Every structure is written in C-alpha cells, then in structure tokens.
C-alpha cells in the first residue's frame, strides 16, 4: 500500500469519523448533562436530512444548511419543554420509553409526508467536482466541505463549553442543578436549550450527509446504534471524547475494510493448517474486511469492560 493511498484512506476515515462526531456530539451533551438516553437522536438527524432536501428543492442548499438545523433545534427544544420535562419526575425509564415512542412517531411522520421511498436529495452543483487527485483517485469537493464544517463545529462547541460563561452554567447545571437554580439561573431552560442545540447538531449532520448516503425513512434506524457506541466510548458528556471516539471508529472501519487478513493467515503463519471443509473454517476464513461492520461494537464492549467511563468521561456509564 503506497503512502498516497494511505493518505486517501485516512482522509476517508476522517470524513466518516467527523460525520459520526456531528451525529453524536449532540447526544453526548444531552446524555451527559441531562442523563436522557435519547433513542430518537438519529431521528432528528433524519428530519434534518429531509428538511435539507425540501428546502434545497424549494429555495437552495445554502439556505437549507442554515435553516434546517435551526428548525430541527426548535423542534427538539419544544419536545423537551412540553414532553420530556413533564416525564422527568417519573425517572429515566419513563424518559427512555418516551424517546423510544418518539423514534417511531418520527419515522411514521416522515413516511407520511415524504413517502417510503428515498427522495432525490442532490449534492449542490457548485461543490460537485473532484477537488484533489491522489494516485488516480479523486476526493470530491463536497466531502472536503463537510470535513471543514464539522471541524469548525467542533471548535465552536469546544470553545463555548470551555471558555464562556454559558458553558460554565451548562456544566454546573449538570453536576449541581439545585445550586445553579439557587443562584438565579433557569435550569429547565438551560436543559431545553441544550436539548434543542443537540438536536440541531444532528439536524446539521443530516443536511450535510443526506445527499451522500441517501435520504430515506430507515436512515435513522441504520445509524441509531452507532451513535451510542461513540457516546459511550468517548465518555458521557465529553465533546473531546466524542471527537476522539468518532475518529477512531471512522479510521478503524475504513482501514479494516482495506485489509484482507483472516484468522487462517495467522494460523498458517504459526505453522498450523485448517481443513477447508471443516466447520471451523467458516469462522477462521472470515476476513477483517467482512468483520468491519461489527468492529465499533467490539470496541464498545472492550471500553465497557476496561474503562466504563469511556476515554474522556468523568463518571461511569
């Protein structure tokens, strides 16, 4: 594998990782600060993609890029204010069930409005060209655009949380909500805003990715589980953790696809041989690239066993 190709693979891994980050950074805030295991998080991502499609059809992509996430954010904040907040007193199970139901409601609503088949959401013409060429393979301009936007988003969130008073209040509301309330801050409103902001981030991820991966009603279901892997691996409530975990998962998944090694090659290397017709060969002949879809979940299990608080988490899951 030449160095140039490795660079290409790393770029792709980074892109996928940053996409996961955008998708899950909102959830890590919500999960970490409010303790709400939001099953419907990926649904907000889906709404973002559909709104992105609808607005770019009717107006243009750039307006969609700004307003679709805002709409999703407002929607999220409303759901928190009029739904989740009332249920909060019944504990986490009630909240969990609420978001679980929400997931199905959103999926059905999307199907009612936009139909069950994928909608033709297109990459904007102006960004639809190959940007750079590395040893015979080109990297699309739109991918670079997505990469840059997600990096900017990370820097923005990180700065707000670490350097501003708002970040301070948010962090304080997480650990000592009563004290923050006693100091005169409106804690429920902080929660509402954080929830809305988290949803808006997922919505933005949807606008940026919907035209690449395809916008259809099962996209939330397909991406739902991986989001939790990122949040748990990175550590609850840690934006830095979400970033690192996303990139690790992105790189590992992209790299494992490129590898043709299987257990047989290791066994042969050690000087043993497996009968091709034996049952055990079914398992030992699985290549790393075939296993790549489950790699993130293996990572999840390892992290939960070895370090339950995740890479950068301050408390256990």
């Amino acid at each position: 594998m030449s160095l140039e190709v490795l660079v290409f693979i790393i770029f792709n891994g980074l892109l996928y990782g940053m996409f996961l980050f955008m998708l899950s950074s909102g959830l890590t805030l919500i999960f970490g600060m409010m303790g709400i295991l939001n099953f419907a998080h990926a649904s907000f991502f889906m709404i973002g993609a559909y709104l992105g499609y609808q607005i770019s059809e009717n107006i243009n992509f750039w307006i969609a890029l700004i307003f679709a996430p805002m709409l999703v954010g407002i929607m999220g904040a409303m759901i928190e204010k009029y739904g989740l907040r009332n249920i909060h007193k019944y504990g986490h199970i009630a909240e969990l069930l609420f978001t679980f139901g929400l997931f199905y409601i959103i999926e059905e609503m999307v199907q009612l409005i936009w139909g069950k088949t994928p909608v033709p959401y297109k990459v904007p013409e102006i960004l639809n060209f190959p940007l750079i060429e590395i040893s015979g393979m080109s990297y699309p301009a739109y991918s670079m655009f997505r990469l840059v936007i997600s990096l900017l988003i990370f820097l923005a969130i990180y700065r707000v949380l670490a350097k501003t008073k708002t970040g301070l209040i948010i962090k304080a509301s997480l650990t000592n909500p009563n004290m923050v309330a006693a100091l005169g801050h409106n804690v429920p409103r902080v929660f509402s805003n954080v929830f809305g902001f988290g949803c808006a981030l997922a919505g933005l991820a949807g606008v940026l990715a919907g035209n690449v991966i395809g916008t259809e009603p099962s996209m939330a279901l397909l991406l739902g589980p991986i989001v939790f892997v990122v949040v748990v691996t990175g550590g609850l409530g840690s934006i830095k953790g979400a970033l690192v975990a996303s990139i690790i998962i992105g790189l590992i998944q992209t790299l494992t696809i490129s590898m043709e090694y299987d257990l047989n090659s290791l066994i042969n290397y050690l000087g043993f041989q497996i009968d091709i017709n034996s049952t055990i060969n079914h398992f030992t002949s699985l290549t790393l690239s075939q296993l790549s879809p489950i790699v993130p979940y293996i990572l999840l299990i390892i992290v939960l066993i070895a370090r339950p608080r995740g890479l950068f988490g301050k408390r256990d899951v």
Partner: protein
Amino acid sequence: MKKIIFTLISFGCLIIFYACEKKETKGPIKIAAIEPLSGPYAAVGKDIIEGIIYSADVINQNGGVNGRMIEIIPMDNAMKAEKTTELLRKAIDDGIRFVTQGGGSSHALNIIKQLEKYNSRNPGKEILYLNNSAVTTSFTNKDCTFFHFRFDSNVDMKVAGLVSHMSKDNSVKKVYLFNQNYVYGQTFRETATRMINNKAPDIKIVGDELIQPFGKIQDFTPYVTKIKLSGADSVLTGNWGPDAFRFVNALKDAGVKVKLFGIYISQPAGMAAMEKNLLFNDVIVVKEFNPTNSKAPNWYKEYEAGHLDAVGYTPDADRFRFMLEMFKNAIEQTNSFEPLDIAYALEGMEGRSIDGGKVIMRKDDHQIHFDMQALLLVDKTDQSIIYRNQDFDMSYSNVGNIPVKDITLDTSCNMKRPK
C-alpha cells in the same frame, strides 16, 4: 334489547362472512406479492409490484382469465426475511392460493421452505409460488420443489452469459468480484469463480469481496480504494438496489475507471440516484430483452406505452408480463383454478417473447429459459430510458446476443410430483 342488537350484529357478521367466503371462488384470483415497500429497498420493490399489477391489468382489460380478474395484493416485507414468513402465513390465512416474490433470495428461500411443508401437509389446499426475480441457482437445483416456478434466469445462467461475453472482450484481464454477503451474493461469487476458471482461464481474479447487504453500507469509498489498489480493469458484481447504486456513484466520485459487468446495476429504481454517473464507466448488464429497442413489435409497443401511461416509466423487465401471461394460459388450458392443475400446465409451457425467440418453462426444474442480451449503457441512441416521468437521455446498446443454448445448464433437481 341488548340481546336483540347482539343477535342482529352476529347475524349480520355471518352474512358478511358468508358473502366473503363465496367471493373467494367467484371473485378475483388473488396473488399475494411480497416485496420490500419500505426501507432502503422500497423503490425496487415498488417497481416489481407496479410491473406485475400493470401486467395483470392488461389481462383484466382483455376479459380476465376464464371470466375472473387477477388481483395483485401487495404486501410489504421491509426487506426483513422473518417478515416475509409472517406475511406468507397471513396470505395463507386469508385464503390466497398464489404468491409471487422476487426481491431477495433469502426471502424466496423462506417461502420455498415454508410452502414445501405446508403443501405436503395440506393436500388440496396447495399454494403456488411464482418466483418473479429471486435467482439463486439452488432453487431450481437441490432446493427445487414442485410448487415453485422461476420466471427469471438463475445466477448460473446469467453469470454464464456474462463470462462468455467477458471472454470475448480483450480489455478484460483482471477482474474483481464484488458481491453481497447472503445466499444470492454467495452463489454469484461461487459461480463466477468457477466459470471464470473453467471458461475464461485468461482472466485473472484479483479480488473477491462480500459486503454486508441491503443498504447497510453508506460509504463505498473504502471498497473503491481497494479495487483501485488491486489493479483490476473490471468488476463483476451481482449487487442490486442501493448496494449497486451507491457503488456506481462512489466509483465516479473517486474517479476510478473500471468496466462494470453485472445484472442489476442499471435498475430503474437507481436511475435518479446515479443519472449520468452510469456512463462514467462502461456498464454492461445481461437482460432478457433490450428495454430501449424501438423496433419491438407493435403489440409490445402498445404494452410499453400503456405501462408508461400507468406508472410513468417503460418496463425494464419483461418477465412480469410473460409470467402472468403463462399463468393465464395455464388456467385456460386446464380450465381449473387449482394450483396443482396450474402447476402441471406450466411445466414445459412456452411463453410469448418480444423478438420471436423462445421462452420456455423447463419441466425438469421449473426454470424458465430464454435468450439473453448483453447490453451496454450509452448516451441516447435509440429510445430513451424513462423512469417516473423523467427522461434520462440514455439507452441500452446491444453488444452481444446470448442464445439460450449457451446458458442451458444441467440441473440436479429431482422433485417429487404430487398425485
């Protein structure tokens, strides 16, 4: 008073039930069509169902079958094999005696296995399975059953056609196999490996990939990188639905040049997603006919125009038409609506082909046989590909005929015939 109302309601229900029961033998001939109508594969399933419904409508407009109409009952399996099993049971409970399915061989296998049991345990109430597109070879070989009829050529036949075409193409030296990891994709891969080694030993297989199927993979760029690295000049793939469309787009985005050989790469459901990306690489598929041939006979032109009117696109597959035509002929020949009689009549039956070639249902294994064509996608030269009222300004160009004798293969089928 309550009692009277209750009695009246019960009586009313009885009458309704009786009426419905009676309708089953006099009303339409119901065919359950189990396909994905939601999820990533919904577009493909919808096309199959619409094609079959239109084909049934044409028969109905010409007086139906022995005075009865054909009614297609769409059922959505969301591309989940266990759901197919559940829906088939529901169809049986509803008294439906005919089922058709095609999207996904894992589903087809479920139906075959389930009906094998059901039909042997319920003589006189058998269910007939009209397989419209599930092409895994074993269904007409070791897994063959009497009540299964396949109206599409199987993987072995299609791959035989593709490999014979590839062996004539001097630019094909290194081929990469790219398939979905389930019963159909595995069959495609095995057959392709075997046939390339036997029939085209000059072609080297430089890569062999089985991917997680059914739209789970969003980004195909890593696979494209791998193909580029392998130095392949062509890719042989059985992929269909989003697993094919996203792959075509990823090749275009990464600017990787290879020849693509396949069966379903240019499925109409993916046209809007791929558009002219389909022309970036040479895409060659094998089909039972050329959907953009303007020289088709008049009766077919009429059928095509009606299809365009009804659903907004011209047929991309011809098999839904001859499947129901043969089904109709079988009923008319035997003068019976019983699946058992129809099945016997279908054996060895000939269908009507567009270009005068033979379409014949082989008796030994219930596998249809017809001439195929190798088609290359090109900028519009003849009739244009139209899908959902959008003109894609592309045509298929015939780059080779594959006569039926080249793809007639032996079968290991040894089925038990009832009666």
